[in-house]
């Protein structure tokens, strides 16, 4: 049999956030080239914030990403609060955790329903599904809206939140509004189960591919870590977040301009699957059931299962949000003044804020002078930590599918990239990945 010659050139892969390209060349069955490249325009956020005041940084860095702006705002606030030794109240902590759940829900539902589902159903986008599968599309839209209503209620807006400020909240929801939200979340559970069942009937379409890698995520003995924790790994002991640079190790590859991240192997993965692999036991009961339904248990080395891990996290976020709101209801909400602006004692210092955002662990690291003006900033976003792992997966996957048609190879590689849910416009450091 003749060995095939195949060329795959996906210029600006679709249904991902930001711009990425895939180039594969197969000559007589031998893979000659397999590249994941990022042409996104760099935006220089770390330079933009230098010279700006402590009370503006969260507003500016929120704009790094429209999809995870709540996560960027929280990481930013945590960095500023850590630098200046600012503590927040138990109540505000719970509200911030709710904010993060709202965003994770919104983002995961969007990714699964709008970006992944079309691949599994063999169409180019969600648009044709609106005529062929209207009921399912409406269920997804309704879940998405509930998640957005949640972000709106806690943060004052779904994208680029307003209420989240250094030291707490400028405005908080009323207890009645929170009760209404809790009921809505409870009512959404049957819809989530319906969506899970739909995905289960399609799960066989997810490629059965495994490549051993390291997973990194925040971890805590008390809860499924999202807002706080130590930095954990499937390969090593955990370290405090302030030592994040010993995990991220950005480096430049010879013959390339890439800043890649590596810890103990040549690449690592962050995101829902990493969190699930590290913190499985702390998932809510219903979320664990969902994971079992899909035979998803730690440590899973199939990157395509990241989408299923997101589904599990949707269940977890709903269940945990209901728990958090119930606690607030039981304790009663402590009122705060209108236009609240917590008293902040500005001082010089350096601080790191890390949170788990939909695509993985996010770090903001700021240094302030004694006037509270930022003198240095570093932001490391999840997708940049994943690029090297995407490339390594592609290099391992392509030889095993080299005999397939150009169309099948292209779809499988696109599905691989989409599984990571990359958020390329977050390119605070742009990348150009070359793999020779």
């Amino acid at each position, binding site marked *: 049999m003749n060995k095939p010659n195949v060329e795959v050139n996906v210029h600006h892969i*679709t249904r991902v956030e930001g711009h990425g390209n895939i180039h594969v060349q197969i000559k007589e069955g031998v893979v000659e080239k397999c590249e994941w490249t990022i042409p996104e325009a760099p935006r220089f956020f770390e330079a933009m914030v230098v010279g700006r005041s402590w009370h503006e940084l969260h507003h500016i860095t929120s704009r790094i990403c*429209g*999809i995870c*702006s709540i996560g960027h705002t929280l990481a930013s606030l945590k960095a500023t609060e850590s630098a200046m030794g600012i503590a927040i109240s138990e109540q505000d902590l719970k509200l911030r955790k709710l904010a993060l759940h709202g965003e994770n829900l919104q983002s995961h539902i969007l990714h699964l329903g709008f970006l992944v589902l*079309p691949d599994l159903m063999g169409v*180019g986008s969600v*648009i044709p599904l609106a005529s062929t599968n209207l009921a399912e599309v409406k269920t997804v839209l309704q879940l998405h809206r509930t998640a957005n209503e949640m972000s709106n209620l806690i943060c*004052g807006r779904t994208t680029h939140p307003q209420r989240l400020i250094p030291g707490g909240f400028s405005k908080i929801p009323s207890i009645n509004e929170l009760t209404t939200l809790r009921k809505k979340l409870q009512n959404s559970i049957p819809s989530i189960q319906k969506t899970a069942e739909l995905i289960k009937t399609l799960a066989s379409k997810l490629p059965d591919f495994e490549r051993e890698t390291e997973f990194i995520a925040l971890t805590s003995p008390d809860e499924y870590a999202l807002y706080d924790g130590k930095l954990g790994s499937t390969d090593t002991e955990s370290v405090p977040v302030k030592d994040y640079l010993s995990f991220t190790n950005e480096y430049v590859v010879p013959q390339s301009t890439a800043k890649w991240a590596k810890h103990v192997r040549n690449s690592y993965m962050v995101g829902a699957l990493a969190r699930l692999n590290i913190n499985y036991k702390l998932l809510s009961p219903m979320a664990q059931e969902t994971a079992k339904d899909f035979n998803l248990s730690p440590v899973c080395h199939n990157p395509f299962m990241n989408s299923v891990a997101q589904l599990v996290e949707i269940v977890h976020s709903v269940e945990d949000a209901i728990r958090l709101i119930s606690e607030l209801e039981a304790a009663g909400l402590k009122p705060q003044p209108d236009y609240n602006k917590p008293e902040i004692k500005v001082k010089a210092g350096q601080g790191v804020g890390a949170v788990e955002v939909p695509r993985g662990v996010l770090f903001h690291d700021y240094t302030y002078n004694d006037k509270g003006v930022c003198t240095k900033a570093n932001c490391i976003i999840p997708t940049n930590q994943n690029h090297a792992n995407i490339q390594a997966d592609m290099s391992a996957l392509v030889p095993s599918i080299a005999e397939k048609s150009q169309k099948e190879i292209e779809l499988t590689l696109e599905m691989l990239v989409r599984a990571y849910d990359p958020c390329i*416009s977050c390119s605070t450091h742009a990348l150009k990945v070359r793999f020779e």
Partner: protein
Amino acid sequence: MKPKVAFFDFAGCEGDQLQIANLEEDLLALLGQVEVVTFREVMKEQSDNYDIAFIEGSCTRLQDEDRLKQIRRNAKIVVAIGSCATIGGINCIRNYKDLDTVKKMVYGENAKLFDSYAARAIDAVIPVDAYVHGCPIDREDFLQVVKSLLVGKKPDMPTYPVCVECKKNENVCAFERGQYCVGTVTRAGCNSCCVNEGTICWGCRGLVDNPNENSHKEVLIKYGLTVDDAIAKFRLYFGWQEAKR
């Protein structure tokens, strides 16, 4: 025939396109009125045959100008959506710094490999027919603009500042609370959403036409604020507009 629409993004966070996804059920209604032919964030299919182009993000490098000009040639109507596209937005903060220093700060010795120039609004490169302001855009505002365009009307845009809406909403003035706010000179249309949430107006919809600078100066004097306070806030969103003035 339904008008064909396309979405494009340049340097930005894609938060405005997210607001379109966030239309939820209204999005289904909108899809009944237009045919989306290109929307890289949500669909695989692409086409150069479209009537209305929606553009998000700023132009930040020479190589992107060709793509913008091609979009202008293809489209009958070009709409800029979100601050980065309408006024240059937050990307323009860096325009006040030396570009080489900025590049080195982020990319170190690899700085020369990253092509970039001063961030600018889309209408600095190609003519723009309509604007949906805001960071992010307001979903209702977007729908109103689309409705106007579909019936062949030029969309309305408020010519008064956010202050007017804020007073109507009976907010306590940010200046009275000891904070600096640019609602006095920022184009309205957001219903003073940020002040309603307990903060200040940051200026994301850009300078209103003919901003009343004298009265703004009077406000600064009245509340004991310095020109430095004003300059810092003006440089958050007004960078490109200020450079043009």
